[in-house]
């Protein structure tokens, strides 16, 4: 499996993102690619900026994005995600391909981590990266606006983990939101795996707007319970009546990690009206994983 982790700086938030990414990647035995998307110069002066960068590189002063990647690299080292043998972060090992710069880490066995530098808008560059290589999960920090969250969830063709307000010192529980969408089963599997690694209790909830729960909802809830039993994951199953998004957000509070499947349905409708996962991601106060 391949996970893509987007960081924007060397802040504590980015450190927390790396920490949770490492935990989850270890749980799935996945490779991590860390991506930094820097601001792109305007076309009209892009080559002048490139010329200055080349001149700076001759004085061993590199792209500021590389400093962020080096910091990420050192952080991953501290988190024991890298093999024991000494690997050095060398800007000379940069490889440029298809508008992205990649750091070659020559001694990493099986290419467990990759460091990627891109320039442009986050969404567009993540999409390009997805076109370049397939990733099962993309992890990002809290996007600046609800519109960004909407676009990230709708347009990135992968599972998305939006890491909002993550505090590594907390014991998070998993809120598994189950319904009749196609991705629910995969969400349950993801949730079970994460729960095992975090030693977290799982709350499975199915929310219906009316008191009558459709067959699809009941089956999904039953299947989730069975699967978690099989996986020996401690859990409880609830069926609640209410507005789904508000109920998910309320139940999750700030001490859960929400796990839910991507919504089915018309893409035009989702673009203009949103969907349950999109609205939940916008309103939630805690990390949320939307599984495709």
């Amino acid at each position: 499996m391949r996970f893509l982790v987007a960081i924007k700086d060397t802040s504590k938030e980015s450190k927390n993102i790396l920490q949770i990414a490492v935990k989850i990647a270890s749980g799935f035995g996945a490779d991590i690619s860390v991506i930094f998307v820097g601001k792109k110069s305007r076309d009209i002066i892009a080559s002048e900026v490139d010329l200055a960068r080349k001149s700076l590189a001759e004085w061993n002063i590199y792209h500021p994005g590389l400093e962020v990647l080096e910091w990420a690299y050192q952080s991953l080292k501290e988190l024991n995600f890298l093999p024991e043998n000494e690997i050095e972060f060398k800007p000379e090992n940069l490889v440029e391909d298809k508008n992205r710069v990649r750091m070659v880490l020559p001694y990493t066995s099986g290419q467990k981590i990759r460091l990627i530098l891109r320039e442009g808008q986050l969404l567009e560059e993540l999409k390009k990266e997805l076109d370049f290589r397939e990733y099962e999960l993309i992890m990002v920090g809290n996007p600046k606006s609800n519109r960004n969250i909407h676009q990230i969830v709708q347009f990135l063709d992968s599972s998305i983990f939006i890491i909002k307000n993550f505090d590594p010192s907390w014991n998070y529980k998993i809120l598994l939101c189950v319904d009749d969408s196609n991705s629910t089963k995969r969400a349950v599997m993801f949730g079970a795996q994460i729960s095992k690694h975090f030693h977290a209790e799982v709350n499975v909830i199915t929310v219906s707007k009316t008191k009558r729960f459709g067959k699809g909802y009941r089956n999904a809830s039953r299947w989730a319970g069975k699967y978690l039993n099989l996986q020996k994951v401690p859990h409880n199953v609830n069926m609640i009546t209410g507005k789904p998004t508000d109920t998910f957000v309320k139940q999750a509070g700030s001490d859960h990690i929400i796990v839910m499947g991507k919504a089915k349905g018309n893409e035009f409708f989702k673009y203009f009206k949103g969907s349950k996962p999109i609205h939940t991601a916008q309103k939630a106060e805690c990390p949320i994983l939307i599984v495709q």
Partner: protein
Amino acid sequence: MGSKTIRALLFWVQQKRWLLLILFVGLTMYWLPYPESISAQGYRTFIICVMVVALIITEPVPLPAVALLIAILEVAFRITDPTGAAKSFMGDSVFFIMGSLMMAVAIVHQGLDTRLALGIIELTGNKVRNIVFGFTAISAILSSFVGEHTVVAMMLPVGLSLIRNMPKGKKIPNLTALILFSIAYGSTIGSIGTPSGGARNAIMIEYWRTFTDTTLTYTQWIVMAYPVVLIGIASASILLMFAFKPEYKIMDTAVRKLRVQVAKRGRIAGNEILSIIIFSITFLCWVFLNEKIGMGIIAIGGAFLYMATGLIEWKQVSKETNWGVILLFAGAISLGTHMKLTGTAVWLGESVILATGGLMEQFELFRNFIVIIMTTVMSNIMSSSGTIAVLGPIVLNMGGDPLFMGMSAAIASAFGYFSAVAAPACMIIYSSGLVKVTDFLKAGWRLGLASIVTLLIITQFYWPYVKWLTNFQ
């Protein structure tokens, strides 16, 4: 349609929303009735102008594509025939921009930055105040001749090395900003000093030739613009010290370390000397031969010498020269030419005069003020050279002395101190990641205000007395 296809389509529409909107507005304007005061061709040229400005600001398509669109629309809107469009794309100023960009690549690759570092240290010593003045002055003087981005590319490593050599432990955001801004603002200020300082100057020279059948020589430009540069150097180094109070007053350790770093590079090499000689020849040709053979031919002559002597390979030149920008300016100049031929420039100029209720005609100072403000605002949004390419034909038709109007616009287009996007120098220091957007405002408003006042004073009390030295007398 599958959901994947719909998603891709929606994403494309979202990414290209500005392009779609601009095309929609352009086509709607085309079908709308046009004012009686302008010809059909003039009105269509105006539509292209609107579309081009919007496309440059929003960047939904690569800039070279905007240049291609200019040619396509000129023919599609029946403003000119294909041969006319093709001919209007090439001129001496396009050669000049091409040659200057190619020479910049060649100069940056010679390692002259080390010599510069040594020169600055010897001149300024280790006091922060002197270093800031030294960086501002040297950047300004050099960028007057070799172009601002070339100077920033050479000066930035020196400045950043000094910052990195400072003792660790204490954070130095103000000192960092001070050094970087002195390089960026110094280069921007200097770029107005001579025609070779920036593409916008060459474009204005071309517009004068097109609109008034006369233009400035290299030395005449210096006579007109250099006082602004000298006052700018002094005010920038003082105002920057107010905007960013440095954490240290002396950079003793940093200067010593830089000296050691520079000493490792050894004595000046043959290629560096040859590079200086070629540039000096080019400069002398600009000064003495520009009226006879044009600045563009001299610039590409300089680029030819760099390649002929083996100082740079064509492969490197072709890879690092911004051909897209050359094409864009060629397109913009073509548009400017058709603005003149179709009467769009006159119509727009008169519209601005009307909009100000005749105040412009009564008060010359007010006219200059409007030109300076218009250019400053637009260059902070759109970039300095792009601004002159679009605004040049209009300001030359706003009444008043075309020399003063053009010169005011060309100089004010360098006042892009408020944003990171206006000038290459500002974008380059911003891309270092060490200065914030707010820093541009913090320092920019002071320098912007000082520059506007300086330019207004120069237009009133200096240019009228030196005009007799120019071809515009």
